[in-house]
């Protein structure tokens, strides 16, 4: 195994709210190898975005990184001064968000926004900046790129807008891109296109990716390894194919069963009973236990994340052992 590009250990990010500290991310550990695509799935509010922002050091008050470490190629990022973090953002790690019509600045031309992203890290001439921007647009499949630099975001379709955002994220050839549900706001057909293109881009450029989504199907089609988050913790991890074939955690199994593709025709979709718990009122022990069909008294204590080979699960009674084995 090569040295990891990104190593997150025991990351804890808390928000100081009026009703007390909210542990949005509570002891998350994982690593990303160079060029690897890691999928991060979980329900809304499970802490996926906060994990992504924590890696970039973009947690604003009342939030703060309460503990843990984030190492990029061995260098610790937690606690770096703002200027040092800024030099890393966009150049070594960049991020793409969910809604491209909200991320791009509506009143600046695409070319202007791309130049700002380049100038954040180096001094370039007007012409050189334009050339590089046009090249980046071409790479993400925007035809007539040189002319489109003078267009404003509203002159692009939703899918094209997201391509522009991806082009901006790629401008400085980062080693890692954090994609926070970049296809959720798009049409299904465009979703599939962008997914395929991103996968090819990552392979060609050797860029590693953390692909965040609440949709297990999307993540599975792009990532090679899967992290499943629940209530601020990773509860299962492993190679995508293995996890899909034999989920260890009852929550992952529930997610899988609720995929439309796994439903019998004409039958209702399977749902996980209950709803996402409030982070203020987590049960003692396993956060999923109140909704878990297999819960037993022992689930009132917190299970550890047990790793075995490439797989890991945070459950006292993992499914493999009881069910299919």
């Amino acid at each position, binding site marked *: 195994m090569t040295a990891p590009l990104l190593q997150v250990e025991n990351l804890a990010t808390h928000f100081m709210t009026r009703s007390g500290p909210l542990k949005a991310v509570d002891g998350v550990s994982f690593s990303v190898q160079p060029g690897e695509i890691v999928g991060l799935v979980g329900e809304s509010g499970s802490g996926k975005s906060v994990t992504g922002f924590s890696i*970039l050091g*973009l947690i604003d008050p009342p939030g703060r990184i309460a503990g843990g470490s984030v190492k990029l190629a061995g260098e610790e990022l937690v606690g770096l001064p703002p200027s040092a973090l*800024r*030099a*890393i*953002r*966009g*150049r070594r790690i*960049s*991020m793409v*968000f969910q*809604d491209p019509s*909200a*991320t*791009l*600045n*509506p*009143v*600046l031309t695409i070319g202007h926004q791309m130049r*700002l*992203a380049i*100038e*954040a*890290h180096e001094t370039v001439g007007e012409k050189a900046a334009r050339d590089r921007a046009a090249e980046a647009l071409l790479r993400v499949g925007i035809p007539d790129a040189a002319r489109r630099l003078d267009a*404003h975001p*509203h*002159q692009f379709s939703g899918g094209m807008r997201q391509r522009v*955002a991806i082009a*901006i*994220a790629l*401008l*400085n050839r980062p080693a890692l891109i954090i994609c926070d549900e970049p296809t959720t706001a798009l049409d299904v057909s465009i979703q599939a296109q962008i997914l395929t293109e991103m996968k090819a881009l990552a392979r060609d450029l050797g860029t590693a990716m953390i692909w965040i989504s609440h949709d297990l199907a999307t993540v599975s089609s792009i990532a090679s390894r899967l992290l499943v988050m629940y209530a601020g913790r990773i509860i299962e991890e492993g190679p995508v194919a293995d996890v899909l074939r034999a989920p260890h955690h009852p929550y992952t199994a529930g997610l899988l069963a609720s995929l439309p593709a796994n439903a019998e025709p004409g039958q209702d979709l399977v749902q996980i009973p209950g709803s996402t718990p409030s982070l203020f009122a987590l049960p003692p022990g396993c956060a999923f236990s109140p909704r878990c069909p297999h819960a037993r008294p022992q689930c009132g204590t917190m299970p550890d994340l047990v790793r075995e080979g490439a797989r890991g699960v945070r459950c006292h009674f993992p499914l493999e052992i009881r069910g299919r084995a």
Partner: protein
Amino acid sequence: MIGFVIHRVMQAVVVMAVISLLVFIGVYAIGNPIDVLISPDATQQMREDAIRAYGLDQPLWKQYLDFVTRLLHGDFGRSFVYNMPVLELIGSRLPATTELALAAVMGATLLGVPLGMYAGYRPESGLAKAIMAISILGFSVPTFWIGLVLIFTFAVQLGWLPAGGRGDTAMLFGIEWSFLTRNGLTHLFLPALNLSLFKFAMMVRLARAGTRETMLTDTVKFARAAGESEWTILSRHVLRLIAIPIVTVFGLELGSTLAFAVVTETIFSWPGVGKLIIDSISSLDRPVMVAYLMLVAFFFILINLAVDLSYAALDPRLRARRA
């Protein structure tokens, strides 16, 4: 865009026509101008001659038509009091008001917007709280009172600045301006400061609210994720995103200051149109009142048009909608 401008110019013509009617009714038709024009001890014959001479025996619609025809020929009549053409009279006073209004509104904007943006960017900081405290003062203390305090402090007690008048002026484009001389500037400073406090308060609030809101958007998050500096984010992204309400208020304030700087002009004996209109009302100098009101309406139309055009420059989405 051309179509938009033509549309707006036609709108402006209609608005001016309506205003002229209102001004006519307000100033000419209500009350009897004859009582002012001739002495109370004139004979009945002299009175009727005068009525005929001024066309006051004609039906109202005919009088209005005459009035409009004269306006269209640029004939606003002569001032009863100064006995000179009204346009010339107003023209001689307008530069004073223009420079005062511009100095006040521009000063308020150039200072208020950056300070307001800072207050929105770091709302918890001590400086932000100080800025907001000043803006509350600017909102709540009446202008005339501040004017008197300024004169008392800086002119009477400290003797640093003159209490009134325009001071020395210099010619530019055939017009006398105070801001071109050192002495004129010292005269301009206090009245401009007086007028600008309220506008400053407003600009601070606008910029602060806009910045607070914009800082939370994904646009700013995305720019930060690209490694852009906080200065770039504020000066390139946020300022452009909050520009529209600021330009709007800039235009409205410029218009209303040009029209209604009366109080400050009176306190600082600044010889502008505000003082002229107050004098003309007290001496019932109707041609001056009419011309002034028409001029104010015209200014507002012009400023609104400029503001609308700048919207298109500031927000490409609006440009697209109008094309």
